[in-house]
Structure formats: C-alpha cells, structure tokens
C-alpha cells in the first residue's frame, strides 16, 4: 500500500485496565487506512499483547467502537485522514463502560440495560400460526424502520453525558430499541416495556442533548425515539394505563 506524504503517524493507545495510561507508537501513515487498520498494525507488528475487539471490518457488527481523539467512533469506517490532527491519533476504549484491557471495553452494562429496557422481542404468535403480514407503509412500521438499523456499537452510549451522570440511565441505544419494538405489531410485551422505559432511569431521564444523534454512525436519531417514548408514556399515564 502506498505511503502518504508524512511517513508516520504518532498514535497514543490506551494500555491496561481502568487505571492504565496512554502509550505512544509510531505507525506508517498510509493512504486510505482506517483507525482499525492502525490498531491492527500495532498489534501485528509492534506489540502483540494489545487487546481490542473487531469482527466484520465493514460497519455491520458494531464491535470496533473506540474513542478516537476524544470522540466515540466505529473505527473500521473511520478514515485516519479525516480524524488525525497533525499526524497524531489518540485511541482509547469507549467511555462510560468498564475497561477490560487496552481498547476492549466491557459491554455487559450496555446489554444489561438493553434487556432492562425490554429490548427483547416477545412474539405474539407461535410458529404454528401464520406469519403476521407487515405492510411497509403503515405509520407504526415507518416509525420502527427509522430506528431499526442500530448495530449496538455503543457509540451513542459512550457519547452521552446523561449516561455519565446517571448510573441508572438506560442509554440511547436501549431506549431506541424499545421504541422500535413499541411500534412492532408482532410484539406482545408493549405494556411491561413501556413501564420499564418510563421508570426511573428510563426515557424521562434524557436531557435531549442529541449527542447520540450526532455521533451515531448509522445516522439514527435515538433522541427522537426517546422523545416519542416520553410522549407515549405521558399519554399512557394520563389514560391511567401507567402507574407512577
């Protein structure tokens, strides 16, 4: 691969656990390389003990989220030329999550909250019954489709100050998932799900910063989903369907 004009990049990478520190490496500055390519170069050519997580490398699996120059990003689709400042990169694990080692953040709290928000699809029919027809132009389907492409990369969770401030807050991805299921005609758990997302730490905790929307690599709008959940919860409360 041809090298760019400046022969090398100075890359600071987080090493160790929660109390680790940044270590600096010199990496060849190539054309068209991604941040994930840089991390892979360090692991394969400089220090094989570097831990990080990736799988698909094409922006589908959501496993390569890291903090690049202070901003959460999916590293497999982040070109170095777009984010390097004066030939320097700082790469850390995703914020708001425990650090396992180096660049690998522990996603357990993220997915625990995803489940707590009722993120699991609960079918209303058994496999013996005919498949529910879903028309793509139904308003509920359009609302669900708007948020359905989430890949659970954790970028929104890492970029959200409400998550940082409030340990109980379920986070943008979990609430966005809940919103898509609230609009899924095939789902049977909408009442308990609405109660879960309206509870303490749920949708009403969102401060509408819209950082999740700004950072979402899939260009989704979790803030919009959360605001619509708020409206749904308020309506249910006024109708007496939701107890405080």
């Amino acid at each position, binding site marked *: 691969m041809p090298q760019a004009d400046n022969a090398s990049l100075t890359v600071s990478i987080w090493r160790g656990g929660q109390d680790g520190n940044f270590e600096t490496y010199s990496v060849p500055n190539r054309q068209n390389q991604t941040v994930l390519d840089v991390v892979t170069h360090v692991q394969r050519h400089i220090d094989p003990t570097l831990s990080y997580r990736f799988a698909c490398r094409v922006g589908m699996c959501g496993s390569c989220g890291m903090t690049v120059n202070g901003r959460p990003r999916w590293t497999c689709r982040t070109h170095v030329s777009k984010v390097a400042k004066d030939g320097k990169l700082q790469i850390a694990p995703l914020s708001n999550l425990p650090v396992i080692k180096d660049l690998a953040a522990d996603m357990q709290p993220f997915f625990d909250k995803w489940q707590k928000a009722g993120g699991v699809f609960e079918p209303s029919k058994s496999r013996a019954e005919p498949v529910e027809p879903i028309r793509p132009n139904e308003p509920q389907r359009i609302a669900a489709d708007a948020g359905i492409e989430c890949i659970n990369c954790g970028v929104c969770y890492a970029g959200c100050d409400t998550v940082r401030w409030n340990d109980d807050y379920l986070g943008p991805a979990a609430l966005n998932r809940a919103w898509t299921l609230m609009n899924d005609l095939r789902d049977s758990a909408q009442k308990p799900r609405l109660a879960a997302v309206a509870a303490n730490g749920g949708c009403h905790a969102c401060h509408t910063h*819209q*950082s999740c929307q700004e950072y979402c690599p899939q260009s989704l709008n979790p803030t919009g989903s959360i605001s619509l959940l708020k409206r749904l919860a308020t309506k249910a409360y006024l109708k007496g369907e939701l107890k405080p």
Partner: protein
Amino acid sequence: MSAPPRPYRRNALWIAAMVHRVSGIGLALFLPLHFLALGLSLQGAARLDSFLRWTDIPLIKLAEGGLVFLLGVHFLGGLRVLFVENFDWRVNQFRVATAAGGAAAMLAFAFLIQVL
C-alpha cells in the same frame, strides 16, 4: 483514566440544555431575594422606597437585564423541550434553540434600553 476530552460538550444542543439548567438555578437563587425585597413593604413604605431607589443604580439595572435574559431563555428553552417531548419530532432543533437564545437576548437588550 485521565480526564478525556469531551468534544460532545461543544454540541450546541448540549450547551442549550446546560443554559436551560443554569438559568433555572439562577432564577431559583433570585427568587428568595425577590421575596425578601417584597417583604420590605411589610416594614413600611419608607423601607421599600429606599430599597427601590438603591435598585436604580445602573449596575443593578444591568443585573436586572441579566435576570430578564435568564427568564426569557429558560421560558423559551423550556417551551422547546415541551414541544420536543409532546409533539412529533421536528428536525432543526439547533435552529430552534438558537432562536430561543437570540430572542431572550433581544428581550434583555430591549429591557436595558428601556431602563437605562
């Protein structure tokens, strides 16, 4: 981990939320002072009048302009949030938040022109 840079705090809507919160705190702090001043009337017209004369100095008028700004920005910012949470999602929240801040600043400016 050392404090990482948090560029999302340069996000205009993050700042809008912070302005809303800080203006609310500012107004809450002002409220007891407001009631204290009103309470002076219970001690006679002379006490209240002398206090009101003291508030005529330009520095206090400037501070009152600040209060008008806080009230305006908190009210309009609160309306924006109520619309976000109770009506269909609208794009361009950045423009709405900027307009709320701008309108509050103009309101405070108009107030200052009136009193100074």
